[in-house]
């Protein structure tokens, strides 16, 4: 398959996943803020923190306010990662590979795109409950996954798309986990308190993990929740699951069962192995936040390796010679 098309497939899926996850972030913060004690101020800065775009926010806005944060993460054309920009870029990539997609996939991408445009026009960030809008975005993206799954052939394009989606999802699950690090509890004594656990529950719900978690562990504990979201092998949003599946897609593309044939496979294999041979106590003794930081860095390395192994034009030199 054309390198450029593989690249666009990968990014189209990443951007859709990103848009959906940002919509989830809005939800988690709303839920957290609703669960917090009456005397605790609503916290919107952590939401910007976990996206990694705090420096940009700071340069654009003087104060942290609910409406501004919602605008910044959802609608702001100046924020390259806002839902608005993710959807625009997802559609732009889809347009570039239109012949690879089915009519149904293309129409659903357009649907989400027009939904977003409409939200901008109607200034949906000013709504009393913006969650309604973000829910529509989330559902629009989920419908897209469904149509994608049921209409696209399992060719290389599909697998590149899948890898993009899974890497983005792993990244975002890790960031959701990290939100707890950034949320300020009133005192250290609050750790393990009902408030603390309520926040963890809200967080689980934000990644649709609450029900599956309850089924497996029953009781809510910090340790188990982290174990579930990082290491679970069968929950589809856990970091480990995402990497295992991404590895399978990568192997399908290269036709390799074991070892590695390029840097992308090597880097992904290393990170997979690291997750396979670690338990949650190891992670906590190193510090959860530090672990997640390190994980995100390695995920970036994988992304770069995928670019270099499959998408980059290695023929520029010969181009000139002809």
């Amino acid at each position, binding site marked *: *398959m054309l*390198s450029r098309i593989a690249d666009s497939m990968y990014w189209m899926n990443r951007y859709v996943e990103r848009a959906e996850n940002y919509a989830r972030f809005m939800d988690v913060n709303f839920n957290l803020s609703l669960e917090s004690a009456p005397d605790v101020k609503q916290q919107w800065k952590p939401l910007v923190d976990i996206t990694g775009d705090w420096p940009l926010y700071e340069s654009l806005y003087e104060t942290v306010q609910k409406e501004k944060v919602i605008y910044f993460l959802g609608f702001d054309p100046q924020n390259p990662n806002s839902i608005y920009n993710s959807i625009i870029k997802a559609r732009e990539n889809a*347009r570039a590979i*239109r*012949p690879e997609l089915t009519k149904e996939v293309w*129409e659903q991408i357009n649907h989400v795109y027009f939904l977003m445009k409409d939200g901008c026009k109607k200034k949906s960030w000013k709504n009393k409950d913006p969650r309604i809008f973000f829910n529509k975005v989330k559902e629009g993206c989920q419908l897209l996954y469904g149509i994608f799954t049921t209409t696209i052939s399992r060719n290389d394009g599909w697998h*590149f798309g899948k890898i993009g989606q899974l890497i983005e999802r792993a990244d975002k699950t890790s960031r959701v986990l990290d939100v707890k690090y950034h949320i300020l509890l009133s005192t250290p004594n609050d750790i393990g308190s009902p408030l603390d656990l309520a926040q963890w529950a809200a967080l689980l719900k934000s990644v649709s993990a609450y029900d599956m978690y309850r089924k497996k562990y029953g009781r809510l504990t910090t340790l188990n929740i982290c174990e579930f979201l990082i290491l679970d092998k069968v929950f589809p949003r856990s970091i480990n699951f995402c990497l295992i599946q991404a590895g399978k897609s990568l192997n399908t593309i290269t036709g390799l069962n074991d070892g590695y044939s390029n840097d992308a496979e090597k880097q992904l294999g290393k990170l997979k192995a690291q997750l396979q041979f670690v338990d949650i106590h190891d992670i906590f003794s190193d510090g959860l936040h530090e672990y997640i930081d390190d994980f995100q860095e390695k995920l970036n390395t994988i992304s770069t390796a995928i670019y270099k192994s499959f998408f980059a034009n290695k023929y520029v030199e010969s*181009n*000139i010679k*002809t």
Partner: protein
Amino acid sequence: MQRVSFRDYDVRGFYDEMFSGSEAVRPSYRLFKDFLEKTSWKKLKSLQHSTDRAQLSLGMTFNVYSDNQGVERILHLDIIPRIISGEKWDHLTKGLEQRIVALNLFIHDIYNAQKVIKDNIIPKDLVLSCASYLKQCIGLKPPKNVWSHISGTDLIRGGDGNFYVLEDNLRCPSGVSYMLENREILKRTFPEMFEQLKVRPVLDYSHCLRDMLESLTDFEGASIVVLTPGIYNSAYFEHAYLAQQMGAELVEGRDLVVQNGYVYMITTNGLQKVDVIYRRVDDAFIDPLVFNKNSLLGTPGLFEAYLKGNVVLVNAPGAGVADDKAVYAYIPRLIKYYLNEEAIIPNIKTHICSEEKDFKYVIENLENLVVKQTDGSGGYGMLIGPHATRAEIAEFKEKVKNNPRNYIAQPMISLSRVPTLCENEIQGRHVDLRPYILYGKEVRVIPGALTRVALKKGSLVVNSSQGGGSKDTWVLDN
């Protein structure tokens, strides 16, 4: 319930495609008119509304050059079709076949023996000064000696009810995807009409296109690609659409690389050879080594690979020499010269500003003429004398004086009108007609066309970039 009515429909002043007088409906429109009159106004409006929505969700959008990047518009599709009788169509088909054969003989002659110049049929200077004339193509013999495989000819119908050729598009004519998608949409809008009217199908265009492209190589299983400038090009929707319909790869210049004289696609799995390129990139941009050095859209070495016969470019570079608007004036004479036939579809009378007598006439009569740039397209760079301000006329007078070779002038033609759905009633709007012609082993004219309609009342400019819309064109069976 308010029904659709033509009681106040104004047919005066122009050839109307539906009515031959204030009461008399033309035979090809009889059934459709009866159907409309049984339809409620509200229903008709809601059908139009669903059409708009269908276009949006299909992503049938185009970018307008003068707008900011990323501004997309839909080409408004008016649901009232343009209907042409089978008899009229068959006549047009003969004329289009004749014309494209003659034009290809002309292009081949110009780049090879130049007999037409030696026999004093057309002035040498006029041909060699065409913006689209490429000296790099001298001596070139493309497969089957065909240069313009895919063309679209703009026809108009004058006040006398006759069709005329307005211009030829021999390079990258666009709009065929709208012909195909408009039909798909209208089949949903008026299914009962298709049952009753025996409209000739256009469905197999993409198959014919693929067959034609495959016929240009001598072996089975040729790898065919569509080359696009990318998603910001105004016709990108069409490029993607055609690639998808033909099952061809849609590539950009940066996806291709030339090695040892062959063209390859860059894939995740290494290089893959390309045999036929349906390119929607202009001549000047296909290869920075030969043409525009700053082109980022092209592939270095592509032209050389083409000259070596290792890849087929469709259409052939240099074909545009025959759709220069100054050459246009000579086409009836070219048809006579090459085929010894009279032109079946006539030209519009054309004044060539580089010829002294014509120049004088044009300068003195600008306010009555339509002046066009000889290498222009898309409705840009033209003056419609009767509608222009004094300042615009003065400005054009200077332009023509400074560079007469760059301009031609024609009398103003009152384009025919087709009933069109407007805000509160149905009114006549001016239209043209662009049929599409494929030329590989043989010439094929698809029984359908893009009818472009000037949506603004009284306007004669049908170009999509200038506020035009489109209509589905129904060619009836005999």
